Each structure stands twice: as C-alpha cells, then as structure tokens.
C-alpha cells in the first residue's frame, strides 16, 4: 500500500467500560427501554420460522393496557385460558408469593435463616409460566423462581422448613436456604452456581425426546448470568438438537450491583441472541401476567408440538435487593423501582380484574388478610420444628448420606470417626 492510501491515524485506541445511566443520587432514567403500546406486537403462529419473526426480539409483547384492559392478538391467542377464574388464581398466586417473601425476609432478619432471596416485582413471570407446564415437565429454576412452586401448589410448610434448615428440611440441611428441590412439582434441584443448569435443561429435554416422551423442560437464567459460558452452551445445544425446551431469561436489569449492560444487554436485547442460533424468541413484558400467560403458552406449545426451542426474555425489574446480603442503595437510585415503566405486576392484574367486575378493593383487602393469616399459620407450624440454630436441626450424621447411592468405605470410616 502506498503512503497516500494509508488510513489516517485516529489517535489512541480505547475500550468501553459500560456504566448504568444513573447511580445513587441521580434521577432514575429508563429511557433506554422503549415500551410499545399494549397489543401492538403481532402474535405469529407457533410454527413461524425464526427469520419471519425477528421483530419480536426487539419489541415487547404486552397485553394489559395502562387502563387495565386486555388488548391485541396475544390476548386473543390466550383464548379459553383468559377467564376470570384463571386470572383470579393467578392474582392469588402472586399475592401469596409476595406475602411469603415478606415473611421470610423478616424471618431472616430475625435470624431464623441465614439467607433469603425475594422475587418482589417479578412475581408474574414464574407464577404465570407454571400455569402452562404440565405434570411431569421439569423446570430448571434459579433462586428467584419460588413462584413456580407457589403456583404449582407446593407445600409452604416444606418450603419454610427448607429455608429454616430445621429437622423437617426435605434436603436434610444439605443445601442453602431457597435452593429448593421438589421433583414432584417439576422443580429441579437449584445449584446456586449461576448458569450451570441452563444447559442441563436442554439435556433433560433431549432425554425426553430421545425416549419418545411428551415431557418438556424449561431453563431459567438471569440477565447477568447470560454472560456465563453455560448460557451459550445451552443455546448451542438447543439450536443443534432442537429439543422441546423453553429457555427463559429473566431480565430484571440488575445482577447484584452489575447492570445488565455489563452482560451485553444494552447493545442488543437478550432475546435477539436466539436469532444468532436460528430459533425464535419473544421479548415480553414480565410484569404483565396476561402477557406472561400468552408467551408461556406460545413457547410451551411450540415445544410440545416438537417445533423446537424458544427463547423468552422477560423484561422486568428487581425491586428487591439481590439477597439479604445485598444493599442496592449503594449502587442504584433509591427511587428507581418507582420509576420502572412496566409497573407492578400484582397491581396491574388487580386493576384488570376490577375493571372486568371480577374483583374489588374490598375483596382484595380481605384476600390479602386471608393469605397473610395462612402464611403466618404455616410459618408457626414450621417453627415448631426449629429454625436455623434453634431446635434439633437435621441430624448431623446426615451430611454423610447421599454423597453416593451406597456409602463407600472411606466415608463409613469418616462417619465413625465423627461419631467417636
């Protein structure tokens, strides 16, 4: 290349270190999220080719309008699933999840457990999704999908005993609080290692399909953990083998103190990643219970009809701290959750049901009181069997059990040494 054709020097090179638009003390700014009107996004047939529905990765599926009306093609897609009885059940599932979280948060502050993770503000996603799962299907959840269990009617007594690591803990104290395992409720043992289970869900679905079964699985991951290799591994295997799996990203904007831009979520929506792998994706208002039902129905139907995987990005906001060990006021504006443009999932469904004449403020207040009494009663019952460091707790010897199906000699010797 001759000198006159050399590109001009542009000065020293640099990299981008992503920073959220606002920090504590700043006014919240959600201008980066473009919120379309409810009903504005098309609902394509479930066998639509990914290339014919790319726009759904860049917009947001919404059903509930600001006035609380169910509008647009996704409401129509729900068909018979959109009835008052079903929606009232959904409202109560969300209320119960929220009350449960509040009670357990307080219990942690009282020293009854070491650790708790709420899902405040995100209740619609798990409670709504579970409505489209069937007996025998399997969720591979994170620690913020307790709504799957609540919506499936899992015993809150069993959940609380696990959280308290007491003598009735179904996991005998082996696992951290909230990292439940409830096989009978299609709820896989939560690892606590981020992202590792995303690819396992894909493998589980492959197992089902290889066996000629009709069961599907669902993977769950947070926006922050999409950065993990396992997310991409799961996407790859889902793309290559086309198993019956729904891949859920709960984009609640924050991973402890890391905003989702640090996981690449501000360069393109997380939903867009499916198109690099050649399968469809939906980007959905996660605070809209009806949109959650509709998108879950769409993706699970695709899986059940052997049409392959679907990625869903649930757009929501982590109102709560990451966990009881976290203080969000140290890294984001305090008022940010109030400014969240997609509102509160519980209030939005409540408004819709009131508008339809299926619910009222009075009935809501009464239902809330009933749910609180129910949770408190179950909590008291669970506390009869102890809380962390109070009461008998799981038998210490049980730490040696379940490492292998049959205890090998070296562990037998260690258990004897422990007992001596």
């Amino acid at each position: 290349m001759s000198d006159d054709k050399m590109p001009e020097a542009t000065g020293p090179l640099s990299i981008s270190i992503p920073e959220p638009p606002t920090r504590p003390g700043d006014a919240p700014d959600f201008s980066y999220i473009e919120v379309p009107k409810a009903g504005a996004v098309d609902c394509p047939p479930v066998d639509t080719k990914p290339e014919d529905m790319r726009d759904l990765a860049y917009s947001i599926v919404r059903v509930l309008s600001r006035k609380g009306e169910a509008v647009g093609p996704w409401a129509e897609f729900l068909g018979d699933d959109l009835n008052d009885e079903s929606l009232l059940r959904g409202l109560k599932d969300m209320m119960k999840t929220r009350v449960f979280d509040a009670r357990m948060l307080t219990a942690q502050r009282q020293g009854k457990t070491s650790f708790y993770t709420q899902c405040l503000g995100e209740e619609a996603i798990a409670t709504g999704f579970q409505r489209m799962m069937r007996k025998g299907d399997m969720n591979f959840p994170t620690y913020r999908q307790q709504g799957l269990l609540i919506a499936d009617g899992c015993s809150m007594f069993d959940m609380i005993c696990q959280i308290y690591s007491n003598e009735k803990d179904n996991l005998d104290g082996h696992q951290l609080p909230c990292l439940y395992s409830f096989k009978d409720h299609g709820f896989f043992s939560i690892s606590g290692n981020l992202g590792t289970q995303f690819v396992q869900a894909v493998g589980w679905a492959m197992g089902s399909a290889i066996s000629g079964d009709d069961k599907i699985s669902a993977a769950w991951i947070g926006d922050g953990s999409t950065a993990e290799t396992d997310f991409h591994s799961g996407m790859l295997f889902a793309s290559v083998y086309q198993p019956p799996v729904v891949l859920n990203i709960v984009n609640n904007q924050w991973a402890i103190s890391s905003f989702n831009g640090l996981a690449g979520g501000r360069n393109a929506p997380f939903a867009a990643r499916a198109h690099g792998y050649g399968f469809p994706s939906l980007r959905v208002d996660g605070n809209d219970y009806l949109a959650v039902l509709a998108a879950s129905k769409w993706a699970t139907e695709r899986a059940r009809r052997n049409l392959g995987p679907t990625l869903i990005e649930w757009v929501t906001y982590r109102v709560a701290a990451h966990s009881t060990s976290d203080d969000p006021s140290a890294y984001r504006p305090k008022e940010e959750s109030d400014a969240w443009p997609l509102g509160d999932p519980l209030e939005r469904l409540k408004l819709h049901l009131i508008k339809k004449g299926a619910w009222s403020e009075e009935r809501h207040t009464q239902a809330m009181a009933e749910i609180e009494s129910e949770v408190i009663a179950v909590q008291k019952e669970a506390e009869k069997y102890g809380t962390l460091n109070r009461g008998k707790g799981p038998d210490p010897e049980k730490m040696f059990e379940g490492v292998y199906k049959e205890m090998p000699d070296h562990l037998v010797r260690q258990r004897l040494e422990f007992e001596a």
Partner: protein
Amino acid sequence: MARMTMIEAIRDAMDVKMGMDEDVVVFGEDVGYFGGVFRCTQGLQEKYGRHRCFDAPINESAIVGAGIGMATYGKRPCIEIQFADYVLPAYDQIVSEAARIRHRSNGQFTAPIVIRMPTGGGIFGGQTHSQSPEAIFTHVSGLKTLIPSNPYDAKGMLIAAIEDDDPVIFLEPKRLYNGPFDGHHENAVTSWAKHEKGEVPEGHYTVPIGKANVVETGMDVTILAYGTMVYVAQAAARENNIDAEIIDLRSLLPLDLDTIVNSVQKTGRCVVLHEATLTSGFGAELTALVQQHCFKHLEAPVLRVAGWDTPYPHAQEWHYFPGPKRVGKALKRVVEAQ
C-alpha cells in the same frame, strides 16, 4: 473367548449395554458417523441409530452439562471427551453439578453418567494430548474414578460404570489401547493378542468397582500402580530381579484399601507410581494412607515415582515419562534401605 484390543473391549462394553438398555446413549465429538478419533464408538451409530449414538459440538462443558440433564431425566449417558486434556471446560459441570446433585437434592435427582476419556502420554501428544488428570477427580466427593489397564478389565469396568447409579470418570490409558506398553518405547509394540488379559468374554460381565487386582505376588516390596504404570512396574521389577507385589488399583475412588494394607503389611515396603505430575498427585493420598495404616510394618520410606512437575513436554516425552529405569532405581532404594 474373543481376542480384543482395549479399544474393541471398550466398544464391546458400550455395544452390550446399548443392546440391553434403551436408556444408554453415547455421544461426544466425532463419535457418531466416524466412530471416534480412537474408534471406540465405531459402528454404534449404524447399529443403534442416530438418537442413541451421535456427534456433539466441540463444547465439553455442554456435552457434560447436557449429559447431566439427560441423566436426571432417566437416561444413562456414556459420553466421550476426546482427550482427558480437554475435560477442563467441563470441570464445573462435573464438580459443581454431577458430583453434587444427589447430595444437594437429598436423592431426589441423580446423575448416573459415565465420562470416558483417553488419558496419559506416550504418543508424542505434547501438553494437550498426554495429561493424567485423575487427582482432580479423586479430590471431588460424589465422583467415582476408574482406570483400567487391560481389555478384560476395560470391558467389565465400563459395563459396571454404566450400570452404576453415580457419576463415573472413566480414564482410558491411550498408550494401552493397542497393547500392554511397559515404557520401553524403543521396542516394537506388543499386541493384546499375546496377553492373557486380551481375552475378553462375549456378552455381559462386570468387574466390580472398588476392587484392586494383585497382578503379581511378591515379598520384597509392594508397588501401587494403575493404567500404563502397571506394565512399567512389571518391567522394572523383572529387570532388577526384585520380587515385587504389584497391585493394579483399577478403581482409585472408591479405593480398595484392604488389598493395599494387607500387601504392605506383608512386604514392609512400598513404591507408588503414576504418570501424572508428582505434587498433590494421587500418589500423595496413597502414601498418606500407607503410612497411616502400615506405619509399624514399614521398613523404608514410601517412595513415589511420577511425572516431573512440568507440563507434558513434546520432544522430551521419554525423559518426562516415569519409565522402567526410574522406577527400577526407586525400587532398589526402597528394597535396599535398612
């Protein structure tokens, strides 16, 4: 009885299990149509179909992660990692997931998965086709780690591994695939055709997990070895006229401690061999157990002969490999110690 190489024996084990149990699935890089780079899965796809034996993308973490998912569904995946050196991307899935699912779910979920991988050097594979990573697996509670040294054991142990309800790491000493290599790389390869352990029964049989094999009985010294080092031990003892009791551990975890202790209490001397690097190797565990359980019987310090604490070198492969000469020296030191 049929004569088989270790490759054929391993393939036969998968064939037998796939024929018996529809839940057994085999996958990994190049294992489908091509039958694997070492041909251990040759013909399985043709015989059992693409849903039972298939190729996987080059992503070990995903291969193991998806295998774990399948196992928790109820399948029995027997997966291949092309070289043990490539298993590290899958280490998190093995350690944090496969090994712990039973314990953390209190038995609700289990991961009966077999992860096969060729291990060890001797093929001029350099640092990426030669390593022996057994110690990074024996250190993990919840895993079983096996390493056969001959075709008969390879088949019986692999069948036992597939039938086992816990995750099993199955290390295949690649230098033994085609014959009982004793470290004398200057000699022509001897084939399994002339070795008694190259005789492999047809059909189903198992070699139980957790049982060592006393390859040779002797009075002077106990040699603890596994994989390729079993034959190196035999060569070194023979060439130095040492009456060694050679124990092929076969199953590193669970470990057959009784066989080890009985032998060392008899001989009073012990040399531990492995091809993996010395420091924090599995030999350290064996040495600690021997001193704990045989202290009063020991007449000499326990010595270890292992790979040097360097990456596995390419050109200097045979200087790195703990061959019969180095093993012989250690044997003499231990036997002659007063």
